[in-house]
């Protein structure tokens, strides 16, 4: 039987700094009808570029320099634009990372759904709408008959992602490219999308390329896994074989990330004054209540992980502690003393004790200031050092975050990688010599290996400087790796809190249980088993209940 998709020695180049630089260096790929290939690698590995090239599509500033892409015997590299347009949407479809950005905000979902079938002459508008509703039903969207007639902004992210999968299915294509379709979703939503994607791909015997940086996710979806590193193929193997016995060192290192875990610290002495104590805090944005009676303590040298889905009030709690959002009720204590609710009323000493590290290091660093300046400012502000003393202190901070001072002092943030930028964020927080740091999703935007480096650095700094962390995250693997205590939040309330060990051993609060069991595991049977365990209806209910 001939292959559906055959890519031979494909090379792609991207234009930057006035020259063409290689992105993909000669990758081969074969896909049979109905087969699912997992494409995995860090950001910059060229996964998306390769995925798009499989459709004969390149983004602006990217070109195919050599090699062949053959889809069902059609040469996509040399095919005319019209021939490719005839295939795209009809026989090859695409599901993008962010459905919220990839649906046109100006048109109703169903109008975008029927566009491909109608324009390609596959079926009439009426037939396509009927089919769309059937697909929505199959994908377990709530109110399938009605949801398509809404605008994209009126539908939640997880629902949109499923609607986009339905849209890709509208012409019953032979091949679908899934480009990180669940990366932007919460774990609980991710499961629903994964389950429906897998179900529908099996149902229609569609071949698929599933692009992701999450091994555990790809393990659930793919028959075969291909690992990419900086545009080169590292290895390709059948999923179970790849998981049980990876051959290359790089693949093994990817597997190893999830094994990082800090040793358990001794319990806190009863009666010790916590560094930060949040007592019965209620907060609201305008008249919309966000936090309800939130209380927890953070002790010296310990890490409290605050977990929950987006919108659960994690970051709002951080804003209350820093005084950016004065609470409506309740108080925040630092070393046993009540802090003024508004940061404007806090003195310099109170301000320096609590620092923040942000999720997007990209936007949290001033792009026009050199690294040295970025770190100097808080040092100067809080310690009054100037001249040589200031420079010495900045160098010391750069040393602490494991960046060579002479090499980095004069660089701009744009010349740094994502992980390095996040380290600068850490140095800036350390510059104030705080006792307490709020880390707001600091590793969410980073690749696993880089994220692990940041976690290890934070752990080291905690040990040497006796820092306390409040670690906001939605990633339970990170929680497992770094935390001492865990606070689980849902809809602005603390639903459960306690020592990490206690939290990760049953019995849990029902919601904690849902969160924990939703974290994908490396076992390729995990999703199947979980769905059986929960009962399919249960998942649908969870989906509806969440919205």
């Amino acid at each position, binding site marked *: 039987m001939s292959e559906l998709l055959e890519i031979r020695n494909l090379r792609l180049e991207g234009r930057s700094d006035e020259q063409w630089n290689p992105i993909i260096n000669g990758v081969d790929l074969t896909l049979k009808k109905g087969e699912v290939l997992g494409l995995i690698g860090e950001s910059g590995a060229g996964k998306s570029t390769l995925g798009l090239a499989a459709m004969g599509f390149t983004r602006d500033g990217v070109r195919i320099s050599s090699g062949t892409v053959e889809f069902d015997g059609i040469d996509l590299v040399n095919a005319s634009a019209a021939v490719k*347009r005839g295939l*795209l*949407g009809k026989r090859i479809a*695409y599901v993008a990372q962010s459905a919220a950005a*990839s*649906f*046109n*905000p100006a*048109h109703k979902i169903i109008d975008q759904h029927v566009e491909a079938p109608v324009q390609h002459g596959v079926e009439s508008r009426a037939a396509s709408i009927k089919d769309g509703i059937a697909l929505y039903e199959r994908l377990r969207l709530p109110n399938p008959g009605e949801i398509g007639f809404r605008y994209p*902004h009126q539908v939640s992210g997880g629902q949109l992602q499923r609607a986009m999968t339905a849209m890709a299915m509208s012409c019953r294509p032979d091949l679908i490219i899934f480009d990180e379709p669940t990366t932007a979703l919460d774990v609980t939503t991710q499961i629903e999308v994964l389950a429906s994607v897998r179900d529908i791909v099996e149902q229609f015997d569609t071949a698929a390329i599933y692009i992701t940086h999450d091994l555990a996710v790809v393990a659930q979806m793919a028959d075969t896994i291909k690992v990419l590193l900086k545009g080169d193929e590292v290895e390709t193997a059948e999923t179970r074989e790849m998981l049980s016995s990876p051959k290359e060192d790089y693949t093994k290192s990817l597997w190893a990330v999830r094994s990082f875990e800090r040793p358990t610290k001794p319990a806190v002495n009863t009666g010790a004054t916590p560094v930060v104590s949040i007592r019965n805090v209620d907060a609201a944005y305008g008249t919309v209540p966000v936090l309800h009676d939130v209380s927890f303590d953070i002790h010296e040298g310990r890490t409290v992980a605050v977990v929950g889905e987006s919108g659960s009030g994690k970051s709002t709690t951080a804003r209350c502690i820093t005084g950016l959002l004065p609470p409506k009720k309740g108080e925040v204590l630092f070393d046993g003393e009540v802090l003024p609710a508004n940061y404007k009323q806090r003195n310099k000493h109170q301000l320096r004790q609590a620092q923040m590290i942000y999720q997007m290091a990209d936007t949290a660093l001033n792009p026009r200031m050199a690294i040295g300046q970025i770190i100097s400012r808080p040092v100067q502000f809080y310690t009054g050092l100037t001249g040589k003393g200031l420079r010495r202190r900045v160098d010391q901070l750069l040393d602490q975050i494991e960046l060579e001072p002479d090499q980095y002092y004069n660089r701009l943030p744009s010349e740094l990688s994502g992980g390095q930028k996040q380290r600068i964020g850490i140095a800036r927080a350390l510059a104030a010599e705080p006792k307490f740091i709020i880390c707001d999703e600091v590793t969410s935007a980073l690749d696993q290996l880089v994220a692990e480096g940041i976690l290890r650095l934070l752990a080291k700094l905690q040990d040497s400087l006796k820092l306390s962390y409040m670690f906001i995250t939605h990633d339970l693997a990170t929680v497992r790796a770094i935390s001492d205590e865990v606070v689980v939040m849902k809809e602005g309330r603390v639903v459960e809190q306690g020592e990490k060990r206690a939290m990760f051993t049953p019995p849990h609060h029902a919601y904690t249980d849902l969160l924990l069991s939703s974290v994908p595991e490396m076992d390729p049977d995990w999703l199947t088993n979980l769905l059986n365990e929960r009962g399919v209806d249960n998942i649908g209910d969870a989906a509806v209940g969440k919205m």
Partner: protein
Amino acid sequence: MGNVSSIIFQRLLLGLVTLLIVSIVIFVAVNLLPGDFAELILGQGATPEAVSTIRRDLGLDQPLIVRYMQWLGGIATGDLGTSFAQLNFKTNLGGAGDVGVIDQILPRLSNTMFLALVTAAIAVPLAVTLGVLAALFRNTVFDRVANVATLSSISSPEFFMAYVLILFLAVLNPILPSLSNIFEGMSFTERLEKSMLPALTLTLVVTAHMMRMTRAAIINLLASPYIEMARLKGMSPMRVIVKHALPNALAPIINVIALNLAYLVTGVVVVEVVFVYPGIGQLFVDSVKIRDIPVVQACCLIFAAAYILLNLTADILSILSNPRLRHPK
């Protein structure tokens, strides 16, 4: 929809407030003009007695605030006052009855509106179509030619464009009349023919701005994920731009169109003079010359209202072009 109507109501209210502030500015500014009607009209014979008599007759001896309140009260009841120049006629020649500012302005205003509408009917579709095509064929010869042509026409003085058009369309090829003497009782087609040359001149002046904004607003969106999605669904480039990019680019385009329409109502004096078109711009300039304050003030107020109204309409339309506001969650 309650959301949208309350926004519209707010904007309308704000527009009224703006108009009130503008009326103060106009009044003060006009009264700061050096020289006055009395001195100007009496010329050499401006004895202090004669001047003060005329001033008293016209109410110019009253304090500024009183005059402003009288003026404002007049506006509220639809009375924009009486033209000094016409008043003068009556007292000297015993003419028949007062000619109010309104009676003087209305025919001129309707001529100007007619010209503006004809121009808009040509320029707006032309500019948007050119903009869409320029975006579609961006960085091609068509794009460059369209850009260079429209930019040169906007960069040349209006009267120059007017004379070039007269040369080619009225003198060398006598297709259109070079004089636009419009009067009452003309048929629509006749009017249209007479005002075609000024309308074409104005089209050349306003097209570039609108076209370039259309092009830029569309190209701005071409990197968005939903545009890529439309391409990956195999949609034709034309459909991607017209169906997927244009609806999301409407807000800035509408705003630029409104600004240009406002210009068509308020800024066409030069073109009117070239074609002897009896519009409000000429009346305005003549009135300033003879310090005919009521007419000047009324014209200013109409110009301000046109600006405010058109921008308000643009605001409301751009709000309506956003489905997030039309269909709240």
